């Protein structure tokens, strides 16, 4: 790792910590003295006596929000960086190719099962396993759409990127239709509608320790593959045949990368719903600022994603707190124009597809 990369990495880690602390200071309920915040955070981990009454609840909500924002941002960004490396195209991202949509469909089905709208197993009534079932369902949904989309876009062992993007649009649109239909049929059940709604536009409200552990476990599993796919992705950038001639097991690398990218995005969706475009924007910025090999790009995208989502959420809560904009909404507002500008810049190459 070069000194410049080290400085950026340390800087991003510091920014992550600072923004997490700042995030504790804003939101409904107003500012808290630093001592109270420290005690509240300690109490959330059973290390201190809780603050009195609703004050403890408020601190905990903010704590889980800050942690969830960081890890969800990191997970989505890592997923995007992996997909861009795998498809050798900077337009690939979990939300673009339909992976986050599939994850939210899986999660929605799990929620319907928990609330008794779908046939369920005795197992699912146990609340302690529900987060894992939710993550698992999101993962299966994401894996299903990833398989569907790449299957459609594949011809003779080559993935056609335009077809991939179009198939992603088709899947995302279908899933939002299905989610809409589900919400209409259960509209009398406010809790379920609210839980489902959180998956359409990502939400960081009312998170708890379970949400955080879901996304952390997905992110850790995905990050564990980095040493075994980073060099391979670098070599595959020169073409699969060339990478194979150098000894890269291309098939295994694809399975690992796709599995990790899907896992990471799915757990992020299970924890906070669909946050569009983050997995597209951050990898781009990281590539622009850091550049270089995937061994650096992949971990850096985790840090970048965490800082990016935390920063936007903090800015939103500190300056537009009254509007209560959800991060999913903010990201869509930022990401749509960004995606269009990318298309504009790549117009020449896009025609060459």
């Amino acid at each position, binding site marked *: 790792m070069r000194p410049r990369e080290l400085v950026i990495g340390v800087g991003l880690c510091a920014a992550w910590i600072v923004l997490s602390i700042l995030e504790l200071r804003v939101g409904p309920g107003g500012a808290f003295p630093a001592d109270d915040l420290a005690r509240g955070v300690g109490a959330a981990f059973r290390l201190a006596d809780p603050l009195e009454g609703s004050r403890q609840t408020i601190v905990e909500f903010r704590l889980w929000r800050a942690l969830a924002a960081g890890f969800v941002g990191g997970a989505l960004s890592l997923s995007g960086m992996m997909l861009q490396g795998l498809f050798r195209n900077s337009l690939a991202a979990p939300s673009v190719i339909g992976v986050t949509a599939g994850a939210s469909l899986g999660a929605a089905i799990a929620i319907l099962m928990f609330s008794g709208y779908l046939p369920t197993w005795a197992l699912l009534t146990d609340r302690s396993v529900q987060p894992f079932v939710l993550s698992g369902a999101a993962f299966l949904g994401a894996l299903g759409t990833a398989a569907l989309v790449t299957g459609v876009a594949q011809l003779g062992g080559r993935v056609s990127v335009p077809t991939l993007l179009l198939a992603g649009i088709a899947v995302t649109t279908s899933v939002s239709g299905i989610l809409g239909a589900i919400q209409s049929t259960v509209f009398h059940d406010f809790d379920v509608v609210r839980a489902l709604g959180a998956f359409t536009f990502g939400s960081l409200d009312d998170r708890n320790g379970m949400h955080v552990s879901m996304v952390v476990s997905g992110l850790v599993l995905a990050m564990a593959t980095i*040493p075994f796919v980073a060099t391979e992705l670098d070599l595959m950038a020169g073409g699969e*045949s060339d990478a194979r*001639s*150098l*000894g890269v*097991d291309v098939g295994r690398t694809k399975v690992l990368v796709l599995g990790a990218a899907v896992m990471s995005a799915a757990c992020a969706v299970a924890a906070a719903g669909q946050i569009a475009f983050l997995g597209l924007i951050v990898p781009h910025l990281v590539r622009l600022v850091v*550049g270089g090999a995937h*061994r650096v790009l992949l971990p850096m995208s985790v840090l970048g994603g965490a800082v990016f989502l935390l920063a936007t959420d903090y800015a939103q809560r500190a300056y537009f707190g009254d509007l209560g904009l959800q991060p999913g909404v903010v990201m869509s507002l930022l990401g749509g124009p960004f995606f269009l500008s990318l298309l504009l810049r790549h117009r020449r190459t896009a025609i060459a597809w």
Partner: protein
Amino acid sequence: MVTLVEAVAVGFEYAGGVRALRSVDFRVGAGECVAVIGPNGSGKSTLVHLLAGLLAPTIGEVRMGGDRVESLSSRERARRAAIVPQGLPRIPTLRVRDFVLGGRYAHLGLWRTASRRDHEIVDEALASVDSQDCQDRLLVEMSGGQRQRVLIARALAQAADLVLFDEPTSSLDPEHQLHVMELIRGLVDRGRGVAVVTHDFNLASQFADRVVLLADGTVVADGPVGDVLCEGVLTEVYGGRLWFGHFPGHPERPLVVPDRG
């Protein structure tokens, strides 16, 4: 002579039933330079990819040092055979040194980190093609001749005994063609086995130990330069519009040029 790679009665069909090769026998030994010639579409590239284990034969088998190619892991395969492809990948940010370091992939350990030894080998590889000076430059800035040298450096870093070249001189001027062929000959003289796919009869004639002529997916001729690059063999495959002679002062080196008559 130690056999590095051997194809026995190999046939290959692409998906969709296009037959590229049928019952081809082919071998390359250590310290041997084999030129593979043949008209466009005769199966030369397919043969190279089969020899490197990047394609699996439809029938027959390819053996590397006695082992069936399919039984080797992809890394083991790459430690035994390197391919020098026709062009460089167009990765805008890739530097020459990092590209050459890619050749060490099959030798890296579990954590895929390059050791001091790997870097020394890369230094040696760059030095032996006279390219140390451009190691920090971007790959996309390389000219045709430099590009071919960088590709050869990567194959050297791969440290495989067998090196397969896919038309290494096709886009070079005459001086660079000779440079590249001299580099290839240097590998052979240091004990490596080399197969070179080429359209250039006269480079084959000057640098190869043996020439294999492919046509329609089969081996039409296989033998010393003088036995293959001769009128009786080549006109059968390429038609009659060729002129045959030999290099002045070297009666053992045939000279074959297109002749409009």
